């Protein structure tokens, strides 16, 4: 039977939200396969995570070492490459740690790698069919791979519903497998996120701009609208990359998570990293020239228009009232 392992990220003693989503994905691949969770870190936080995971997974493998106090793919990758049984399928959330670890793990284990999976079509014989998105989410694709020898898959957060835990799994301490860690990459420190005079996570109204704003000087258009609505301007990643606004104004998984009453996404295509930052917003309005932009899948109200024309009209109408 296919053996499935789920590598679980954790922070401050709490397992990542995707843990139980990985269980659902595992069941979609092989409905009756017991799933072993893998956690790496150091005590005592790691013990709390392992115990919590034992409530949901049949088994939990715990890799504990002071060298793993901070996630370090360079240390844990070779350990897993030798500890995992041949033929096993490894699942991970598609997060920044998985991007570090998963591709190399697939090479070291000589198994296929499929990243950022959003759906599982199921296993037919040894052939697994999966769903991915390409071109910034504008198109989807079915991909297939033979998993007879095992595989490494990373799964997009929120794509699978969290499973109910099966209860009382056993914890297996695998720390002895770590050995003398390779130290070719050494963690030094975590630099905190920038702060700004405005905390966009606390605002009720956000006028958020993306690539569609075109030019730095056009940001004024969004500022005028935000002022008229009594909100502030936020932005998507390309605006920060262009250095037009501070990172503290960026909405998304690599920026801020926001939950305003109203979120106006202006000229934002809606990458999944951006959508991850607005999950809690009750009312999302998207204005974009491309009717196929992924943002329209997440929005409550959509308007196909050029924001450079539409926003000034909206501002004028609001101020005129």
């Amino acid at each position, binding site marked *: 039977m296919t053996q499935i392992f789920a590598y679980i990220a954790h922070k401050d003693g709490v397992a990542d939200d995707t843990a139980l989503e990985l269980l659902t994905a595992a069941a979609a691949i092989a409905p009756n396969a017991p799933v072993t969770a893998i956690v790496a870190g150091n005590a005592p936080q790691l013990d709390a995570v392992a115990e919590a995971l034992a409530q949901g997974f049949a088994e939990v493998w715990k890799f504990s070492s002071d060298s793993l106090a901070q996630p370090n*793919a*360079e240390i844990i*990758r070779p350990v897993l490459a030798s500890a995992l049984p041949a033929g096993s399928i490894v699942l991970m959330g598609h997060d*920044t740690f998985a*991007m*570090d670890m998963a*591709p*190399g793990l*697939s*090479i070291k284990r000589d198994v*296929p790698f*499929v*990243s950022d999976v959003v759906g599982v079509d199921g296993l037919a014989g040894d052939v697994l069919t999966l769903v991915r*998105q*390409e071109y*910034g*989410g*504008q*198109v*989807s*694709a*079915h*991909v297939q791979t*033979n998993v007879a020898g095992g595989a490494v898959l990373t799964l997009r957060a929120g794509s699978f519903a969290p499973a109910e835990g099966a209860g009382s799994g056993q914890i297996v301490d695998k720390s002895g497998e770590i050995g003398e860690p390779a130290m*070719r*990459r050494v963690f*030094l420190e*975590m*630099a*905190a*996120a920038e702060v700004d005079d405005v905390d966009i996570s606390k605002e009720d*109204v956000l006028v958020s701009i993306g690539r569609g704003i075109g030019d730095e000087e056009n940001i004024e258009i969004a500022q005028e609208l935000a002022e008229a*609505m*009594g909100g502030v301007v936020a932005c998507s*990643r390309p605006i920060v*990359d262009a250095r037009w606004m501070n*990172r503290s104004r*960026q909405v998304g*998984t*690599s*920026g*801020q998570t926001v939950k305003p*009453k*109203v979120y106006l996404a202006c000229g934002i*295509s809606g990458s999944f990293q951006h959508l991850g930052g607005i999950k809690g917003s*009750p*009312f999302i*309005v998207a204005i974009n020239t491309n009717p*196929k932009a992924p943002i329209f*899948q*997440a929005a*409550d*109200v959509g308007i*196909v228009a050029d924001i450079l*024309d539409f926003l000034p*009209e*909206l501002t004028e*109408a*609001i101020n005129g*009232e």
Partner: protein
Amino acid sequence: MDILVCVKRVPDTSTNEIEVNDAGTDIERDDLVYSINEWDNYAVEEALQIVDRVGGSVTVAAVGDDESDEVLRRAMAMGVENAMLLSGDAFAGLDGRGVATVLQAAAKTKGIDLILTGAQADDGCAQVGGMLAAMLDQPFASLVNMIEVESDKTLKIGREVEGGEQEISRIELPCVLSIQTGINEPRYVGVRGIRKVASVEIPTMDAAALGLTAEALAPQVERLDYFTPEVGAGAEMLEGSTEEMVAKLIEMLQAKGGMK
């Protein structure tokens, strides 16, 4: 520091509407505007800036068809001295592992201290850099948004992690880094710069030149089809004149508390 930067020619998603063709076998490629993969552009700029500071050389390599020479020339117009086009019939239909295999073979043809790739490309797989590092048995870091050269043995790097934090580490050379957007401000490439390098000869290497067999390049992951993503509940699309849409939207915003 001798740096290899891996670049890819891709449809520009910021200017194109990507659609699936009628047969679902590919995207509609007529009229697409192509450019250098956005992440790779930052990687090229970063390599040039490192060499400006500490000396050395930059080589760009692309796996692709003859038209990929356009992104190599663009990098040369930015100031890169050397380019390699990795092209040939055996490279059609490669998966990410196949691309990494080709790049690994090419990297071995030169003395390289540091390899930079973009963090991801149009397919969003984010895999080639990590695979390449593992094949070369070198340390790797993804989503790098800061590089400081400490010595000829180590770099101090920053990685972007969730929530806007930056993970700072020291990494040994030689190594492979995948570069996140925003690490620098890529320089502007003018038409004059492109013209200047238009006739430079770019060496091309195929599978035979790199000593690669068809077996080593056989894809492990195959794309079956393309289809248009299912739209969830979907948005209520407003229609009509701008005036009508504005009026309707204001009404909705007032109802949702989005107006003070």
